[in-house]
């Protein structure tokens, strides 16, 4: 299923597999139940975006350690159409599809660090980090 923490996102079943893997790694990183739930929910939103808006891509799931605490880093990437106006895409309710427009803004609130790199025609990369508390 995983290859060095890297998972494909090419189908609805892959989105479910990403959720399950992120849950397993969040537990491994010592996260509380609430933080696990938040990071899995963010992962579900971002994986669906890769599938729906970019036609597929991948995510790398890894445990990170900054010397004081452990956490989880998820790097989503695709070679889809990219996002022309990132600030606009992050606004709650903004969507170019049939969704609710909460995926980007909502997942940014659910994690500690959220880095989005995208340009039209160049695909999209989103790296998020969530730290285990206490």
């Amino acid at each position, binding site marked *: 299923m995983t290859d060095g923490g890297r998972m494909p996102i090419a189908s609805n079943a892959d989105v*479910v597999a990403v*959720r399950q893997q992120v849950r397993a790694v969040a537990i491994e990183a010592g996260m509380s139940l*609430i933080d696990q739930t938040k990071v899995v*929910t963010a992962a579900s*939103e971002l994986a669906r975006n890769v599938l729906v808006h970019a036609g597929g891509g991948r995510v790398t799931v890894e445990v990170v350690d900054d010397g004081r605490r452990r956490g989880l880093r998820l790097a989503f990437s695709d070679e889809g159409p990219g996002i022309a106006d990132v600030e606009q895409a992050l606004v709650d309710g903004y969507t170019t599809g049939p969704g*609710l427009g*909460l995926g980007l803004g*909502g997942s940014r609130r*659910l994690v500690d660090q959220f880095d989005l790199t995208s340009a039209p025609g160049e695909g999209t990369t989103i790296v998020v980090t969530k730290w285990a508390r206490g």
Partner: protein
Amino acid sequence: MERVPILKLGDILIISIQIDLDDQSVLGLQEDLAERVVATGARGVVIDITAVEIIDSFIGRMLATIAAMCRLLDADTVVVGMRPAVAITLVELGLSLGGVRTALDLEKGVAALGHLHGRDTTR
């Protein structure tokens, strides 16, 4: 696509979500449920999410859609068993599910439907 079973208990339909739903299964459940509500003439629908570990915007929208759809088909909907971590995450995600009636567990959910119906008949 995995199917979620829909059980009938008197004039109530009960759905207990026990699997990690992919998006296609979510849409399938909405359709199956609409058909069953009409076919059975159910007056109430209880959706038990005790086993559901996360609700993202797609699944959240399903709950809102089911509630709205059932209202049009003359049935009341109650969502029961939401986990505390799921509730906290939903609010932070930005989904308050304002139009969705909830109860803490199956028993309270079924009781809430009884009350709704009781009020209906005395009107």
